[in-house]
């Protein structure tokens, strides 16, 4: 039963328009400049008004003319070394580099004059171009039709910078985009130029790996085929792939991706532009872990026979067994655990199913302290300032989190802010390398107490900040004193908020969920955080929805309990189970995921689920029908209206619903140091654990780049 209204609200534009009226009074900062700042320039005779300080290239883009360039990139600093963007300015003696020269009043920019065309020299020296080569495109468009080349050609050795990036340095045109990316956005100064003139080579000089969790983005940034993706090399051509826009769920940031598929398998994952979350970057795990989607997959329903061996069976058999088990239980005897990649549709259908059986024991694997506000108020478990909000803040306090590995794109945003907007960062926790400098305040929770009390020297800085942001990592909240940490942190946040200078509507407290894409959606839908409820009342039937963190093992359950695992990989949960129902991975279903900011986004089907696997909510719906407690929805739209019924923000896609009510209970407990609770970043979920590319990365990191054997393909 869906209403037109719910569909209308789901359209992002309508939702935003309605919500815009109700939005807080926080003035956006990137806007209205005084009209007197505009400068009038002429592009090929056509007048165009631009702000003072924009470059000639940007002015021409505003006029609609694209000037060819190789080394210029909107998000990187200007280098101006490729000389492809040279344009003639009327009455100027020499052509100017359009990417670097700010406009002056009254200039007439001639983008197609004789002098301009002569200045754009593109010599097509290379022959084997990779299909997305901008160099090839621009040579075809702007280059000369015959060769004037009389000098000798050069060849450059290939550098080994890791198992992810394939380098063919002969193709490099030394635009230095990768060098600028590595130093500005990734924060590792590994790439650089060696030599000069014709002998300029880009590389790491010593045989070093490009050790950054954003290293895959140089593949997108390189305009020629010098840096390409090693796992993707020679597997597909771009014109034979189908591209599907989707969302990444391997961490909690929810970066927007494009899944390229061919013939029913995923060929590669590329980033999609989303200014609010990931700009145009994605982390390495997102980009390269797709080959884990093809290994260790559950493709058939399985049941454990008398000897304890899991044998494949039919859907009828498996579903009737599940339904039979569910019919025999009531109340707390049936429980469910939601794993890290469970989507909102399956979460809501599972909750409905178990609620109809009188059970409230639905848990997530990740703990969240339930004292005080707990998970009742959304503001308590969201990244309230939003990822974009980091750009506007001037002080950031990180507590118990290593954003570099837990949410690499969040870290990239922090670094961007640190670099351009003078963000000051302080950290309480282990002293890790975060690609930017920060004030390390300590490692103990006693530091937190002092900050809350006002006795720490840093408190002055905190109270003087105009827009402070306090981020606590969810892994810090998983400890025994997590509740105390959360309450201390919210005290700190509240003090910072009520102190001088912080404007109304600016949120200070943030929780950064690490690695678990389903946590926010589960908490929104009413799941309990943490499996303590299950440990206290061990159930007879346990439903694992992709739960692979191993929180509950057979030892915690009574002797003849039934464990049902519904998921897509055979990892930790599947061997434990009595009945296995194969579900779909994130590339194989239309699913809704909510990222750590509370932004709801949906994935789309890129490939069909392998073998007999089905979409998760459909399996639960089928179980419910066989068990006699039929759920009231039959199609995806109906499930989504049920989602809207429970929590309307879940269907307002691409929008962040703001949360309020920052209330906290001060409940200080014992203090001890915050241990390093971080899982190795590359193996934190079942897809990455199944991926051979990620295994190569782990090996390369631990043993060095040369230790990874690659089959030699020239």
């Amino acid at each position, binding site marked *: 039963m869906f209403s037109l209204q719910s569909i209308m609200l789901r359209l992002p534009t309508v939702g935003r328009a309605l919500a815009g009226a109700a939005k807080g009074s926080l003035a956006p900062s990137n806007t209205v400049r005084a009209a007197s700042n505009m400068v009038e320039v002429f592009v090929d005779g056509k007048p165009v008004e631009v702000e003072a300080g924009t470059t000639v290239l940007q002015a021409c883009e505003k006029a609609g003319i694209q000037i060819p360039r190789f080394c210029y990139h909107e998000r990187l600093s200007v280098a101006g070394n490729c000389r492809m963007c040279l344009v003639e300015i009327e009455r100027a003696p020499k052509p100017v580099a359009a990417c670097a020269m700010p406009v002056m009043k009254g200039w007439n920019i001639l983008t197609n004059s004789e002098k301009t065309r002569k200045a754009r020299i593109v010599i097509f020296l290379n022959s084997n171009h990779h299909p997305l080569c901008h160099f090839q495109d621009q040579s075809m468009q702007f280059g000369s039709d015959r060769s004037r080349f009389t000098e000798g050609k050069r060849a450059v050795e290939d550098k080994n910078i890791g198992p992810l990036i394939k380098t063919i340095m002969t193709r490099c045109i030394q635009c230095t985009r990768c060098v600028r990316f590595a130093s500005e956005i990734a924060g590792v100064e590994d790439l650089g130029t060696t030599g000069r003139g014709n002998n300029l080579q880009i590389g790491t000089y010593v045989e070093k790996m490009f050790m950054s969790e954003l290293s895959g983005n140089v593949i997108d940034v390189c305009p020629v085929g010098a840096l390409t993706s090693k796992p993707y090399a020679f597997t597909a051509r771009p014109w034979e792939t189908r591209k599907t826009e989707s969302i990444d769920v391997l961490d909690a940031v929810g970066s927007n991706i494009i899944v390229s598929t061919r013939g029913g398998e995923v060929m590669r994952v590329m980033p999609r532009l989303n200014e609010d979350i990931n700009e145009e970057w994605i982390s390495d795990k997102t980009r390269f872990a797709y080959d884990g989607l*093809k290994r260790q*997959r559950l493709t058939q329903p*399985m049941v454990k026979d008398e000897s304890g061996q899991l044998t494949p069976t039919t859907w009828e058999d498996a579903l009737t067994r599940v339904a039979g088990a569910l019919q025999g239980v009531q109340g707390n005897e049936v429980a469910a655990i939601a794993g890290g990649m469970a989507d909102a549709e399956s979460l809501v259908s599972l909750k409905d199913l178990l609620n109809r059986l009188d059970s409230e024991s639905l848990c997530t694997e990740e703990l969240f302290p339930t004292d005080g506000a707990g998970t009742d108020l959304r503001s308590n478990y969201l990244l309230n300032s939003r990822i974009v909000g980091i750009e506007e803040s001037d002080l950031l306090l990180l507590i118990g989190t290593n954003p570099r590995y837990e949410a690499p794109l969040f870290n990239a945003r922090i670094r961007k802010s640190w670099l351009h907007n003078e963000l000051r960062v302080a950290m309480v926790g282990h002293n890790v390398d975060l690609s930017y400098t920060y004030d390390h305040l300590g490692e103990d929770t006693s530091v937190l107490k002092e900050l809350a009390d006002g006795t720490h020297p840093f408190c002055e800085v905190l109270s003087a900040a105009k827009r402070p942001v306090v981020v606590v990592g969810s892994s810090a909240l998983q400890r025994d004193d997590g509740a105390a940490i959360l309450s201390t942190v919210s005290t700190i946040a509240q003090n910072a908020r009520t102190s001088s200078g912080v404007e109304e509507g600016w949120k200070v407290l943030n929780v950064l969920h690490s690695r678990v894409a389903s946590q926010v959606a589960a908490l929104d839908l009413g799941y309990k955080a943490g499996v303590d409820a299950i440990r206290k009342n061990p159930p007879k039937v346990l439903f694992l929805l992709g739960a692979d963190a191993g929180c509950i093992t057979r030892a915690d359950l009574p002797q003849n309990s039934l464990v049902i695992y519904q998921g897509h990989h*055979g990892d930790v949960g599947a061997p434990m189970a009595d009945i296995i129902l194969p579900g779909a991975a994130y590339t194989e279903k239309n699913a809704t995921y909510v990222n750590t900011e509370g932004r709801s986004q949906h994935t789309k089907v890129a490939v069909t689920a*392998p073998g007999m696997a089905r979409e998760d909510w459909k399996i639960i719906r089928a179980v419910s029908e066989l068990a006699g407690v039929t759920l009231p929805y039959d199609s995806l739209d109906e499930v989504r209206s049920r989602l809207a019924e429970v929590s309307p923000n879940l269907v307002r896609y691409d929008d962040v619903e703001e949360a309020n009510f920052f209330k906290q209970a001060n409940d200080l407990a014992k203090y001890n140091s915050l241990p390093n609770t971080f899982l190795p970043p590359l193996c934190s979920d079942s897809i990455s654990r199944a991926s051979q590319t990620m295994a190569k990365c782990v090996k390369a990191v631990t043993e060095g780049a040369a230790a990874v054997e690659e089959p030699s393909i020239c």
Partner: protein
Amino acid sequence: MAEYANLVRRALGQLRGHAGVKGFLLQLFRVNDVKVGSLIGVDKYGNKYYEDKKHYFFGRHRWVIYTTEMNGKNTLWEVDGSMVPAEWHRWLHCMTEDPPTTHPPEPKKFLAEVHQFNVSGSPQQYVPYPTTRKKIHEWVPPKAGAQ
């Protein structure tokens, strides 16, 4: 007159060569050809090989009379060209002048001990299968005893 005498002589020769009227008629219905020639050899399945260079031109000068039972199949009426084994096939198709009786074949690995005839259309036929690697590798559940 002399041609008729020749004709009669040939007919009598053929009757004699096929062991009487009964054999002649069996040959007529089975093979549709009653020519006689010198018996060159018999293979181990019973197929008989004849040659007559004098009366028949190239292409018709060598032939085989198939056996009545081979590899468990009754081949009295259901005769099949692929019943000829490899060494006789060579001689029968005039690839060589030397029959296997005088020049036995060199033993090769690929020469089967018992020659199989063509099984297309029967349940033993070869069906091509893909040899590419699998796109999706399924999860193999652990052995029950190992746990």
